[in-house]
């Protein structure tokens, strides 16, 4: 699951023309460390929904990689 998430994020980084990441650390912030703005977060949401059938932001703000993984695990 973590690897799939890493693939999704790196694919988005490539498309945005920014450098990809080697390892996904749980404490990483989506906005500060992964440099995602609100539209990129929207794109992340739909890709995660397509892969894991979970809507990230449906009931609250998700800030870190750990919180994303927790949401996916709970689904």
């Amino acid at each position: 699951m973590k690897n799939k998430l890493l693939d999704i994020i790196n694919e988005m980084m490539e498309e945005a023309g920014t450098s990809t990441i080697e390892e996904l650390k749980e404490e990483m912030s989506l906005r500060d460390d992964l440099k995602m703005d609100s539209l990129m977060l929207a794109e992340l949401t739909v890709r995660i929904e397509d892969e894991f059938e979970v809507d990230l932001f449906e009931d609250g703000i998700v800030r870190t990689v750990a919180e994303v993984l927790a949401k996916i695990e709970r689904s």
Partner: protein
Amino acid sequence: MQWIIVTGDSRGLGKEITLQILSETQYGVIGISRSDVNETSDIISNYPGRYIHLVYDLANSKEIKNLYINQIKKIGPIYGLVNNSAFAYDDIVSNLNNKLLDQMFQVNVYSPMNLTKYVIRDMLLNKVQGSIVHISSVSAHTGYKGLSMYAATKGALEAFSINVAREWGEKGIRSNCIVPGFMETTMNASLNLEQKQRIYRRTSMKKETSVNSVASTALFLLLEQSVSITGTVIHVDNGTL
């Protein structure tokens, strides 16, 4: 094949928009309305494989998520959305009935907003630079006795459209409104001849708005030829000035 969703596809303006998309373009149409599939069987038989009618009551905006995930998403990538369905609750505001007001806001505002949500998500997922068209009403710009509550739903839709245009423009997703004048459709069937004449006298051209002209404008706003137009409002109202 990419698809365009048209709400209220079974009659009036929605049916005309559906027919123009099917005859003038290569897109498929997903029609959504309460009407039984039999009411649209003539379109289905003329355009096999390019037209799907989903029976759904847009007075229930909360189930649109399930409608999208269980049905719409499985059909194919969405290119466009025409928010055309509307509920007309006409009365003077001193008679405001909350149940009817709620129902009207569900159909005219909440469902278009929820459909826009899932259509934009679908466009992001499939990297589609699509187009959203909302059908407003001349009553949001010119006052008519008995239409204050209905006009409020259309004003909400226009404000929503402008801000969606700003929000998603950098992804190439467009959002525009059409403001039709009064047309000879079932929506206005309750008006008597004298009421209609009074309304038409307020237009520059002194007659009812052509359904065909409004549908052609919707088609224009959906297609590539309007690629630089977003966040705008086009009046198709015989010059209600």
